[in-house]
């Protein structure tokens, strides 16, 4: 393999990895606070992309405004889902909330199939994001540099919210003990709604960026990236925001490099990723950056 090719592969990996990471952050945040794997995350991801699509094509909004609106709308969807599907199950066994999450996921996908139809839709992409930059034989999309930057900024922002603000303090407190937090006079339901809102906004942001990179959207577009991001979150240590980013990057790198070094085995690209996941979890069961979780009584 020539050096040029290797660098090209690295950039491909960087783009894919940061997208995985971005989706994984949302997963990990909700899990870290509620111990709930929000399976509907990948579907909010899809909704975000569709909101931009309709914003640009139906209402002819400028792209930037459509993006902001889509993120806000998705955040609203997240809180509504929490109110309808998760909040009534707050005191039920955790498995019930998980099943409810899977139900919500199927519901959104099939609703999408009815409303948007299954036909893939093209995505509008501002030129400055996709004008290929030539560096010798290496070709880079501006997107490949912007996505990691945005992901980094979002990680910083989230860490700030969780560790430096009052609602963040409440979130961390809920993650330790929801009952005691309630006794302390914290409006637990509001904080949890905020958590879902934030998580969904992140999902929408990553969905929009995913659609810029892979410009075709359909109701099931969130399923595979959702799975991969979930793996990335577990790999990095679920509950850890930095871990999610690192897990995503690692997963992207492995997927690309597996094909780069073993082209004949390219059909097993996902298998490489999963084998690595198993190996890492065998050696470090809590993931790369994970803390040992205390069993809640």
């Amino acid at each position: 393999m020539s050096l040029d090719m290797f660098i090209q592969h690295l950039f491909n990996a960087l783009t894919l990895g940061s997208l995985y990471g971005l989706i994984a952050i949302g997963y990990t945040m909700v899990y870290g606070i509620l111990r709930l794997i929000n399976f509907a995350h990948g579907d909010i991801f899809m909704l975000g992309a569709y909101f931009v699509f309709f914003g640009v094509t139906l209402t002819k909004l400028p792209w930037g405004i459509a993006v902001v609106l889509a993120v806000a709308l998705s955040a609203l969807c997240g809180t509504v889902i929490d109110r309808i599907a998760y909040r009534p199950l707050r005191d039920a066994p955790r498995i019930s909330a998980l099943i409810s999450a899977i139900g919500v996921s199927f519901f959104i996908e099939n609703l999408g199939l009815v409303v948007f139809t299954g036909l893939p839709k093209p995505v509008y992409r501002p030129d400055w994001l996709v004008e290929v930059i030539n560096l010798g034989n290496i070709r880079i999309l501006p997107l490949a540099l912007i996505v990691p930057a945005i992901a980094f900024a979002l990680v910083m922002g989230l860490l700030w919210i969780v560790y430096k603000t009052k609602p963040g303090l409440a979130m961390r407190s809920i993650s330790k003990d929801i009952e005691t937090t309630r006794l302390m006079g914290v409006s637990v339901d509001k904080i949890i709604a905020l958590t879902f809102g934030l998580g969904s906004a992140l999902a929408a942001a990553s969905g929009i960026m995913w659609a810029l990179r892979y410009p075709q959207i359909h109701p099931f577009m969130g399923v595979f990236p959702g799975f991969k991001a979930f793996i990335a979150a577990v790999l990095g240590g679920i509950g850890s925001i930095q871990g999610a980013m690192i897990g995503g990057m690692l997963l992207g790198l492995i997927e690309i490099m597996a094909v780069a070094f073993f082209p004949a085995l390219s059909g097993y690209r996902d298998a490489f990723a999963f084998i690595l996941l198993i190996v890492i979890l065998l050696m470090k069961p809590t993931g790369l950056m994970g803390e040992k979780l205390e069993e809640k009584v």
Partner: protein
Amino acid sequence: MKFGKVGIALALVLVFAAGAFAADTVKIGVFLPLTGQMGFGGQLELDGIKMAYKEAPTVLGKKVELIVVDNKSDKVEAANAVKRLIEKEKVVAIIGTYGSSLAMAGGEISEKAGIPQLGTSCTNPLVTQGKKYIFRTCFIDPFQGAGAATYAYQKMKAKTAAILIDVSQDYSVGLANFFEKSFTKMGGKVVAKLNYNSGDQDFTAQLTEIISKNPDVLFIPSYFAEGAIIMKQVGELGGKFKIMGGDAMDNPEIVKIGGKAVEGFAYTTFPYDPTMKNMSPIAKKFTENWKKAFPGKDPNVNAALGYDSYMLILDAIKRAGKADPKLIRDQLEATKNFPGVTGSTTMNATHDAEKPVGIMMIQNGKRVFVDVIQPKL
């Protein structure tokens, strides 16, 4: 009891040769989806069959009696329709159907009864697999791969090729195998063969590898959901080769999603289209007659396959010399270079038609039928 449903189906049975008696007519059964989700395609095929019937209403000096049953796009109805045709109407051969699942349901019955059945547009390889009495007028899906290879080698003058395969789809693997076999047999070289799985959206790693091998053509027997994205990424990574695919890529959305990236993309399809240039005399005559018979409705490949299916059966009966199911079966199996609207047809060992493959190309953002090619196997 069992025939209660069929009684309703019979409301749609049409008898063309009025007043004919069983003894001096040759009964040919037709089962097609005339209602239900596949009704549109089934109706076009029936129109094609009827046109052929009008042109050739007799065989061996006897009148042909065409008995049509609607299978309602339903597997159970398809089996019942065939049963009805064989047991009650005592047909000697059956034409049908549109829809591979319907063809398979009906085929089980025909096979057991020993009545030859000729599929119109059912392309799933399983339809004729292991069957003695089941044939089809169309080619099977993977056969297109050979058509793409022949077009790439002969017309695009490609000497080296790369293939990107969706390993989780029989369709993709089948087309890729036919492509590779045909391309190497003609003297071309497959320089890279890479895989992916359905649902993947990132192909940059595979494409970077393919670009480094610098092939003349890239064959992507993918489904529509991945194909347009693959081509987009080829453009972004700077691939300069031509790209070909199979009929699963035939969708108007492809231009909207792929934009400039799909310009020049060529894919295989059935060998008939009313807009095709250099039509064979048979196809020309068919198109003209159709336009007279159905003003304002364009003929399509389903109509052409319906037409060809009737003519093929008639030809087999003629060669058999007697309207006997077993003899007709033998002659269907022996069909060689039979000239039809959809090109010269030869029945191969697996009872699937070997015939020309059509080539479509995206030109100036439009899908254009550019060529018909005889695949080199």
